[in-house]
């Protein structure tokens, strides 16, 4: 095959991260994990500056906390809780998988094939349930009890 032959670049690009619709659930968890991670990182950088306001004493701190009571910030905080709870618990699942504790051992492939995805699925269900529990508890506290 000569190199000067014209070929069409068929790379999927970023759209390939999102998948086409016939993919497994782990693939969607991967993309949500990524989005949640970036979201929490942006919040965290803002949060460093927000928390640092306490060096200016109560005259600045208390009015800022009043502003944070606004519904816009409340909804924002709710998103952070959702993002963090998901990223944290899915992250624990990924750490267990990546350090080889949840993918099982190599086995003889017998049709219909079972893969490491089947091995880790109970863990995935547990982690997602825990994430939902955390989101419910944190969201309840945020929305109805305070911040």
């Amino acid at each position: 095959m000569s190199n000067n032959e014209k070929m069409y670049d068929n790379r999927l690009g970023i759209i390939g991260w999102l998948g086409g619709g016939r993919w497994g659930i782990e693939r969607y968890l991967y993309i949500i994990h990524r989005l949640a991670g970036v979201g929490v990182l942006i919040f965290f950088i803002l949060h460093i500056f927000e928390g640092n306001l306490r060096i200016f004493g109560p005259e600045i701190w208390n009015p800022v906390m009043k502003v944070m009571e606004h519904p816009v910030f409340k909804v924002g905080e709710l998103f952070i809780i959702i993002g963090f709870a998901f990223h944290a618990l899915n992250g624990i699942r990924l750490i267990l998988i990546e350090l080889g504790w949840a993918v099982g051992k190599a086995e003889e492939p017998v049709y219909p094939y079972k893969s490491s995805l089947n091995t880790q699925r109970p863990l995935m269900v547990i982690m997602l349930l825990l994430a939902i529990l955390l989101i419910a508890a944190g969201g309840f506290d945020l929305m109805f009890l305070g911040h």
Partner: protein
Amino acid sequence: MRDMKSEVGYWTFFIIAGIVVFVLLFFHMMIIHMDQLLGIFNPAGGSALDWKNVIYRSHSAFFTTIYIILLAAALYHGFYGLRTILFELGLKKRTQSLITIAVWVIGITLFSVGVFANIAVQTVKAAV
């Protein structure tokens, strides 16, 4: 041809930082966002974000140490993750090394800002 710089050390600390952040942020969330449900670490009572509670935690050596460890671990974990995502965009080698430098500079700057605030707050008086 192929970049041979080892990523194993970076990645191992990324995972360790992730676990540290998980443990510490778990308590952080318990204290701040479940204060009404659990009511821990609020010596002055009421909301965790009341000035009295905030300044109490800021003046405690335990919380200051924890804040700094959490800051370092979270910044490392977050920025390494961001770098991984950016590296996967198929950028040029030169851009990739620029990203690595930029991530280090921004990370260390933010860390310095946070550490400065944690030390400066010690001199702020608790009384209103």
